[in-house]
């Protein structure tokens, strides 16, 4: 976790610098320089953006689209980026709004769709993936089983608690950052996080008892 947080901080500072370069090039009308600087920005922040979108949308295809849309929005509105603020906060806010719009659109779509089709977010789950190298098939099977249980326990949480748990607990974002992303206050995020962990604990206990 500290390694993840450290690399995230490094990436964040690099992103801010790249964003400044993109903005300067766009303002100067240097399109090829702006494009190159933006390619650097995409390369350095893409993975983190994809993970955040995955946590919020729980669907790789939707997350992929959301990340693309977010980067295009960022490029389009790069001149309104305030250089005194970290790029990460600005970016994640745009990403969170894009994900929220997609969730709303998806809910509207699902109202009209027939119930019973395979949900796309369940396709390609951990059980379908190839076992990790260096593990025996039995170990891989048990590991996948355990992982599925853990992810199943996360899925039992209400949506908001689940999002906050994934962003804070898994991704290592601070409650303040998550509050900025989700539009909640920092203390509300802390309360949701605490409740999420308590429910997760109950769900994990229940799973252990069933076994």
């Amino acid at each position, binding site marked *: 976790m500290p390694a993840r947080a450290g690399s995230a901080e490094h990436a964040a500072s690099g992103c801010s610098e790249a964003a400044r370069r993109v903005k300067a090039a766009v303002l100067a009308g240097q399109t090829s320089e702006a*494009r190159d600087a933006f390619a650097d920005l995409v390369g350095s922040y893409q993975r983190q953006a*994809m993970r955040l979108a995955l946590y919020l949308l729980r669907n790789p295809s939707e997350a992929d689209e959301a*990340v693309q849309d977010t980067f295009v929005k960022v490029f389009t509105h790069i001149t309104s980026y305030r250089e005194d603020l970290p790029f990460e906060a600005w970016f994640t806010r745009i990403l969170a709004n894009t994900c929220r719009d997609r969730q709303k659109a998806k809910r509207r779509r699902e109202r009209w769709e027939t119930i019973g089709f395979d949900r796309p977010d369940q396709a390609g789950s951990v059980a379908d993936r190839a076992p990790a190298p260096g593990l025996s098939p039995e170990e891989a099977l048990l590991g996948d089983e355990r992982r599925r249980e*853990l992810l199943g326990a996360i899925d039992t949480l209400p949506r908001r608690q689940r999002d906050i748990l994934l962003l804070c607990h898994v991704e290592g974002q601070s409650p303040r950052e998550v509050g900025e992303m989700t539009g909640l206050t920092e203390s509300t995020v802390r309360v949701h996080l605490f409740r999420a962990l308590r429910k997760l604990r109950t769900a994990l206990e229940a799973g252990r008892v069933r076994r």
Partner: protein
Amino acid sequence: MFAVKRHLDDNLLIRRYLADRGLAALDAQDEAPMRHLAHCAACEARYQTLRAAFEDTREAAAADADAACSEDRLAHQRERIMRRIDALQSGPRVLPFPAAPQHGQGAAQPRVIRRWVAAAAVAGLLVGLGAGRLVFRSGETGSSEVTARRDAAPTLAPARQAPTMRALHVETGVADDQFLSEIELATAAPRTRELRAIYAFTLEESRDVARPVGKD
């Protein structure tokens, strides 16, 4: 003392976990329970179990996300993003309509047809003007013959001419008697040769017939 009396509940263990992760801060009232945790092996064991479960969950979720962020997927995504950025920079493109003929022979043919149509219209106009002029001249000669014949004819015409407004207007200076007699003459006399027979059968006949009857 708290440390001796009872063990910690799950809420306190979770708060401790969040504090360890830097996601929450412990306040003054948590000091005693945390001291208990430091001295109670059972609570410490429970805390370690809870911590391990949470860490396993975190790792499972992170692995799940990492599996979805494969290098291949990220490379495709990057490519699509940059393609969209390029499209933004190059501005909107006008796509040719598929059914529209391309420039070349297909486009030249209608232009040639249009030219021929224009040339035919001009030629038709000229021919029409020429023919019109010829017809007009022949008409002029015909009318001159008619006027000559009219001049040569006996002067019966004035009495048989239909009175027109223009004629009435011109003859304002004529005496009233003459004017009235002209009107009478005009109304009494048939204006066209074709109608004379009918006139004779109707007005003249009726007048002739009526007269004896009336006189009788």
